[in-house]
């Protein structure tokens, strides 16, 4: 199997390829492209991130090296294309029940867990307090390819195959640091991914090169609405047709990076046609934004946008007349929010275990008491429960299977269990859990967000 030939030639037609070879090449290609992008970054050495990259590179240096220089030339600002560039997801549906991640997935998990620990955690106290995600953190995550690995090369990205599952694994890893920060980091990725999957040639050419660029570009999906009992299938935000335009009217809340996003993907109901997604740039007349500091997920810079008769050209309708698959859009959002929940819940578990072993009461560590130990066992069971449901929906996404049911169930469980886990986390520390010396009060506040966000990301 010649990697060069595969790369330059018919890259995506590998249906009859050995899947193992395919995976190895994908992983190698990605590590090469990542390395090329970030080789000069001080992050690499400072945080030892070269280890996971190098490990992959060692496996096939002699066949993989050319791809690096090719990927490095792939940055342009505006791209004209005749038809939309769709990045295929994996083609060979697995034949076996399996929980083994690919090399690429393991690398992403390790890299982003490292970023969460080394970059997010030191910054989180201030970010949480001020409702502000520091640019250096968002840029560092961006530099590691979170967005570009989803955008095809001809539009400035590094993607050969699209892997929503790998994105979910990366998001879970980031959310171990902070759910809000991970939400902010994944917001532009979500807009980019929706453009890749549904966007017209012009929409892609206009926005994707920018989103794939070297700097983190704030952008976000605007789905959630501020009224109680919000249902993404019964949007109150409306888009009325007016000649060759649409006029948007309504309010959106729980929008990450709202105040500084340059691009919003707004969900609105077109009377008679149902829910549609619209690309709305900041600066559009009638669009107002405001910060909306919330109980948790504060590092996501949550805000509201108000659409006061915002008139946009019909070319801003995502996917044009064909539109986007709204069921899929919501389902994949639910899966992504579940991944956030799993990561942050895992952080609770990882924190309470050493705490319960070190904290003493009545002459011994509190972990020696069943009331404490059983609570911790329960957290572990439910984190794993949430994770397998999320992974199942994610894997089905990867291979184009219907996920409306699976994503609904994954999200439902995540919303319920993660709230309980957040509460257990504080309870296990007692009064110490309630003060800000420990992160569990932040986890508690963050995890309450899971049930609020019935969609709103897209990986």
């Amino acid at each position, binding site marked *: 199997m010649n990697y060069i030939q595969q790369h330059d030639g018919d890259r995506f037609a590998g249906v009859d390829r050995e*899947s193992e070879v395919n*995976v190895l090449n994908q992983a190698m290609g990605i590590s090469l492209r990542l390395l090329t992008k970030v080789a000069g970054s001080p992050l690499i050495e400072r945080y030892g991130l070269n280890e996971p990259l190098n490990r992959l590179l060692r496996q096939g240096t002699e066949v993989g090296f050319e791809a690096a220089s090719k990927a490095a030339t792939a940055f342009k600002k505006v791209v004209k294309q005749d038809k939309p560039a769709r990045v295929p997801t994996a083609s060979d*549906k*697995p*034949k*076996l*029940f*399996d*929980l*083994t*991640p*690919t090399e690429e*997935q393991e690398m992403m998990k390790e890299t982003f867990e490292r970023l969460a620990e080394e970059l997010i955690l030191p910054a989180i106290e201030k970010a949480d307090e001020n409702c502000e995600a520091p640019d250096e953190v968002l840029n560092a995550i961006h530099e590691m390819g979170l967005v570009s690995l989803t955008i095809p090369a001809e539009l400035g990205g590094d993607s050969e195959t699209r892997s929503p*599952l790998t994105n979910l694994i990366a998001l879970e890893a980031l959310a171990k640091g902070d759910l809000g920060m991970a939400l902010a980091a994944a917001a532009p990725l979500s807009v980019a991914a929706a453009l890749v999957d549904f966007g017209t040639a012009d929409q892609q050419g206009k926005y994707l090169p920018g989103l794939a660029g070297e700097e983190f570009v704030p952008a976000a999906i605007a789905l959630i609405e501020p009224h109680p*009992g*919000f*249902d*993404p*299938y*019964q949007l109150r935000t409306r888009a009325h047709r007016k000649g060759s335009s649409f006029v948007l009217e309504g309010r959106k809340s729980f929008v990450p990076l709202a105040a500084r996003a340059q691009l919003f993907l707004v969900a609105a109901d077109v009377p008679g046609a149902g829910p549609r997604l619209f690309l709305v740039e900041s600066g559009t007349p009638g669009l107002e934004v405001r910060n909306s500091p919330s109980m948790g997920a504060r590092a996501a810079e949550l805000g509201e946008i108000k659409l006061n008769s915002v008139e946009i050209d019909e070319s801003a309708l995502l996917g044009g007349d064909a539109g986007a698959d709204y*069921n899929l859009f*919501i389902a994949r959002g639910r899966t992504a929010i579940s991944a956030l929940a799993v990561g942050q819940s895992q952080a609770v*578990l990882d924190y309470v*275990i050493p705490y*319960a*072993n070190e904290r003493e009461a009545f002459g*011994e*560590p509190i*972990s*020696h008491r*069943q009331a404490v*130990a*059983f609570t*911790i*066992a*329960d957290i*572990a*069971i439910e984190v*794993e*429960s*949430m994770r*397998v*449901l999320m*992974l*199942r929906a*994610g*894997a089905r996404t990867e*291979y184009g299977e219907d996920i*409306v*049911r699976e*994503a*609904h*169930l*994954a*999200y*439902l*469980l995540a*919303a319920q269990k993660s709230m309980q886990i957040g509460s257990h986390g504080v309870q296990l520390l007692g009064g110490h859990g309630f003060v800000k010396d420990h992160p569990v009060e932040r986890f508690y506040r963050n995890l309450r967000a899971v*049930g609020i966000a*019935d969609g709103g990301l897209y990986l």
Partner: protein
Amino acid sequence: MIWLEIPKSLKPLADMAQQVGANVFRPISRKYDAAEHAYPKELDALASLMNGMNAAGSGAGAGAAAGAKDKKAKKERDPNEIINGANLATILGVEQLCWGDVGLMLSIPGQGLGNAAIAAVATPEQLERFGDKWAAMAITEPSAGSDSAAIQTTARLDGDEWVINGEKIFVTAGERADAVVVWATLDRNLGRAAIKSFVVEKGTPGMELIRLDKKMGIRASDTAVLSFSDCRIPKENILGSPEIDTKKGFAGVMQTFDNTRPMVAAMAIGVGRAALEHTRTLLAKEGIEVRYDQGVKSGSAIEAELRRMEAELEAARLLTLKAAWMADNRRPNSVEASMSKAKAGRTGTEIALRCVELCGAAGYSEDDLLEKWARDAKILDIFEGTQQIQLLIIARRLLGLTSAQLR
């Protein structure tokens, strides 16, 4: 490659098990619930069918004995190759059969929990001798249940024979099985390391059936009290090593649980799914249907409850498949086995009970099977390690604590 769907190769087996559940078990489900201790003779024909199912599952079995057959094939396998083998097949088969009737599933000739114990640790010679026998499992004693290290039954080597003395209770299929796997201690002073398991064949002098217990559920399954007085068995009937290795401790006999706990989890999932599916059918007639293309907070309270239970059941099912998958691929799975058992045990019980409530008096009446499933389900959160024992195992492992520290 992460993929959490049932492989095509195991679908015929699962389908066949579902057919047995629907067409053999369900029609006689109420009959043997009412006629407790009566032998369900309809099941005799099943023993041969189970062999057919084993063949359908590409060498993997639907019952407890499956592990034994897989063991032979294991030798030639590439250690890095992922397989979906006997453990996964067993889970799928057991779930479907218990969707039919868990009491009857436990009564299928040749599919006892003792078979899983034999499959897990038997030598090739022992597999030859016991592989095709229906084997029950005898661990619990009148004064030692969850604390299985405290068992009093003794085994003493006398020449070429072990001599067993003691009393065992809660022996599932204890009257009907061809053999019983008995836990006994070689030396009460040496604690858990001295506990070994022995195969005692039916009819061995000294082993006596004292009585059959009356129970709340799984009434089709006989639950026996057995006594052993100077019961002599061949020296070769010990499972695992006769050495008392105090470092290894309980590991030998406890190893069995890594295989059987996901099996019991699968039973709970089968019962829970039966209740949930039936409840959905009954509620659909009242115009209540589950939809996923709506907000999670939308829909009626009953509908929300149905979706919540489905999510819990699905999570339990995937945890169980994961534990079995790990066993198939020879990864240590004690924690995962306990997680699956804990999650499925409590979820199955909760769902079965809640479904009775949702269906009201119709669900509570013996006119329907819902009330039976609610009675059947509870044992699945108890045998092969109670909910609380599973939590202890998980917590000790997570926290790195010994059984002396976390009691």
